[in-house]
């Protein structure tokens, strides 16, 4: 565990010490090496489920895919940020990469925490670098509002979580995940206990986000620079899902009744945010709402507490992380050329950038959950377990799948097909850096087709 954490911490002095012309190549190769070593976590060997154990951190089949995704994402973020930060002075570029790295450190500590309060502190700690990335390096004036919404929505949910965790600690004496699954289940019946249940989950539902508490997400994703959008979509939303999966163990038996409204919100959110996507003019906003839609499915899958639900949720989280991040990178390639997120401004790009169209095609197919990609595996497992829970959900989930296919196709056709507008007179050809970025996003997704056991979680 420290083999990954300490090198990541030492990346910070490296960033400041390396000569300016080697900054980006050094940080990229350093973080790539760290991410390749992090893949060793995927082979978990212990019988008890927890591997790579030290007193404060451990990994288990639930956290390992998310950790690998987090570590994989740092080189991708560095790759994506190289162009738009190029005009800035070198110390600002170093500060930017330091922010990305500190975010990485907090995320690694969050996903590998064994004590729930440590998870909480790291969960909150990720807010500060993300806030600075969004509000300092975003491009439009709305970024201040986006940062405020992001910070306050998340904190309003997570402060009750802190009180709920402290109450749990009083009750059970410990908050170590290693032993919490073995404590006898509590007698939870009073109204105060129901408030406690809500307090435990609210923070993660806001983070995921649940439809209804999702208003921060379109703002934050749209206003963030590319690295901010990538890390938000790929990892920070999954913190919510991961937290929910960890907390569910202790929330029995209240969840059977209390989760109804949240499952309904989640499923209705799939339909609603999918429909909004069909009417979007802003490309990043479309991808952001599509994230809400996918995470609604994840939330529903977790809340019904079946093994297929959990597995599907985890697979969908990983697959969506890679897909959504890829789509944001594609949107960024448009933005860097036209400095606009409006879709109709840069249409028919297949004529001009045909190789990029190939990446758009694969990413859109992944978004609409084409077999045999893991996106489909996750969605199908969640839809099946929801169907088993209640036949009526098939109306919502099936409709949601249809709408997802609709807007993914819409996004592809809008940006790539059709006539090239007359005002597009000079666009940079695609950089090799951008091709590499897209390949590094989509190749893991395609490779996961052949060994999905890696991201199955506990049922492996």
């Amino acid at each position, binding site marked *: 565990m420290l083999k990954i954490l300490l090198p990541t911490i030492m990346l910070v002095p490296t960033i400041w010490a390396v000569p300016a012309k080697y900054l980006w190549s050094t940080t990229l190769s350093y973080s790539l090496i760290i991410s390749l070593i992090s893949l060793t976590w995927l082979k978990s060997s212990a019988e008890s489920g927890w591997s790579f154990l030290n007193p404060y951190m451990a990994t288990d089949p639930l956290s390992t895919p998310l950790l690998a995704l987090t570590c994989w994402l740092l080189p991708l973020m560095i790759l994506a940020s190289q162009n738009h930060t190029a005009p800035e002075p070198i110390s600002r570029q170093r500060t930017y990469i330091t922010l990305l790295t500190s975010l990485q450190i907090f995320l690694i500590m969050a996903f590998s925490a064994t004590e729930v309060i440590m998870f909480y502190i790291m969960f*909150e700690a990720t807010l500060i670098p993300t806030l600075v990335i969004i*509000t300092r390096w975003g491009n439009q004036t709305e970024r201040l509002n986006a940062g*405020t919404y992001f910070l306050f929505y998340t904190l309003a949910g997570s402060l009750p979580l802190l009180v709920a965790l*402290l109450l749990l600690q009083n009750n059970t004496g410990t908050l170590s995940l290693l032993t919490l699954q073995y404590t006898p289940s509590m007698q939870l019946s009073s109204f105060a206990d129901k408030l406690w249940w809500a307090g435990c989950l609210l923070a993660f539902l806001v983070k995921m986000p649940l439809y209804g508490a999702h208003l921060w997400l379109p703002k934050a994703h749209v206003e963030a620079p590319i690295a901010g959008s990538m890390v938000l979509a790929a990892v920070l939303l999954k913190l919510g899902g991961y937290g929910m999966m960890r907390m569910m163990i202790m929330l029995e038996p209240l969840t059977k009744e209390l989760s109804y409204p949240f499952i309904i919100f989640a499923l209705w959110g799939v339909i609603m945010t999918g429909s909004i996507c069909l009417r979007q003019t802003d490309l990043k906003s479309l991808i952001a709402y599509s994230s809400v839609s996918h995470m609604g499915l994840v939330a529903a899958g977790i809340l019904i507490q079946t093994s297929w639900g959990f597995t599907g949720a985890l697979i969908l989280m990983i697959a969506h992380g890679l897909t959504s991040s890829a789509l944001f990178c594609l949107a960024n390639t448009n933005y860097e050329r036209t400095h606009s997120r409006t879709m109709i401004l840069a249409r028919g790009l297949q004529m001009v950038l045909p190789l990029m169209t190939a990446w758009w095609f694969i990413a859109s197919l992944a978004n609409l959950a084409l077999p045999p990609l893991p996106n489909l595996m996750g969605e199908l497992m969640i839809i099946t377990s929801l169907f088993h829970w209640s036949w009526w959900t098939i109306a919502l989930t099936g409709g949601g799948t249809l709408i997802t296919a609709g807007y993914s196709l819409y996004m592809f056709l809008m940006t790539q097909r059709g006539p090239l507008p007359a005002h597009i007179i000079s666009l940079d050809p695609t950089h090799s850096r951008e091709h590499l970025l897209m390949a590094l996003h989509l190749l893991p997704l395609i490779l996961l087709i052949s060994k999905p056991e890696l991201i199955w979680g506990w049922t492996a």
Partner: protein
Amino acid sequence: MNPYILAILLFGLGLGTTITFASSHWLLAWMGLEMNTLAIIPLMAQHHHPRAVEATTKYFLTQAAAAATLLFASITNAWLTGQWEIQQITHPLPTTMITLALALKIGLAPLHAWLPEVLQGLDLTTGLILSTWQKLAPFALILQIQPSNSTTLIILGLASTLIGGWGGLNQTQLRKILAYSSIAHLGWMILVLQFSPSITLLTLLTYLIMTSSTFLVFKLNKSTNINTLATSWAKAPALTALTPLILLSLGGLPPLTGFMPKWLILQELTKQGLAPTATLAALSALLSLYFYLRLSYAMTLTISPNSLLGTAPWRLPSTQLTYPLATSTALTICLLPLTPAISALLTP
């Protein structure tokens, strides 16, 4: 100011607090508090500006009233129980009067109205002394009395956190913002007083460090309102990059030091069965966080030419020692991992 006079006044300040710290007799404690008040009055009025004189007058009147109430309460206690020991206050009437007198001394809601106006009239150095040193002596007394009426203290605490949060939202003057932040933090300190005085002491000490950092940052930038903060990137770029962390630490965000007192207080409150109080206090901290965030936006996260809020300032060479600022900033940002050590250190 004449250096000899300044030396005498600072000596008086130090002596007053020391006398209060060392006393076990109420009269001696009262004397120390009065010495503090009298010593700081010339410091506050040294610039002879009408606004400063107004602030001094308001400060004198409120502190004198509080000290008189304190004297009256201790005499009442002597009459009722026959002794003058500070730690032996048991009768509820003197206890309540002393609690309210000390609340007026430090600026707890609902006795807080003087603090923003007084702080606004002072220059940043005197304001720093008022916010930090002048809180020590009353807290020495607060920590020693064993208050038994739980509801009063919880109401004082919650009212302070809410008023401190809401009051600061409409301010553009930095000293008033820091005054409301002071009120809010004092509220947190009082909330946990009856359950664990050592956590109150920890909160006080971390607050002193954080607020010293903030005052010293503003002093270095010679800025007194949000508009002039916007040009601080030109005066001290590295400090401008660090100041959001100081402000967010004041706001109580993990993993910065400011989270430590909030965490320990919420833990103690939940242990005592006051979970709704804990939740309300935690959510009221979000109000204060809003104006700290606004300060960070104005100072660091937006940059010229995006914000032409402040006119081009004179950048004269600064004679300020940077060592105190450096130390307090380091402590403000990095002290959270030492939480167990610090709370063990402060538990008797």
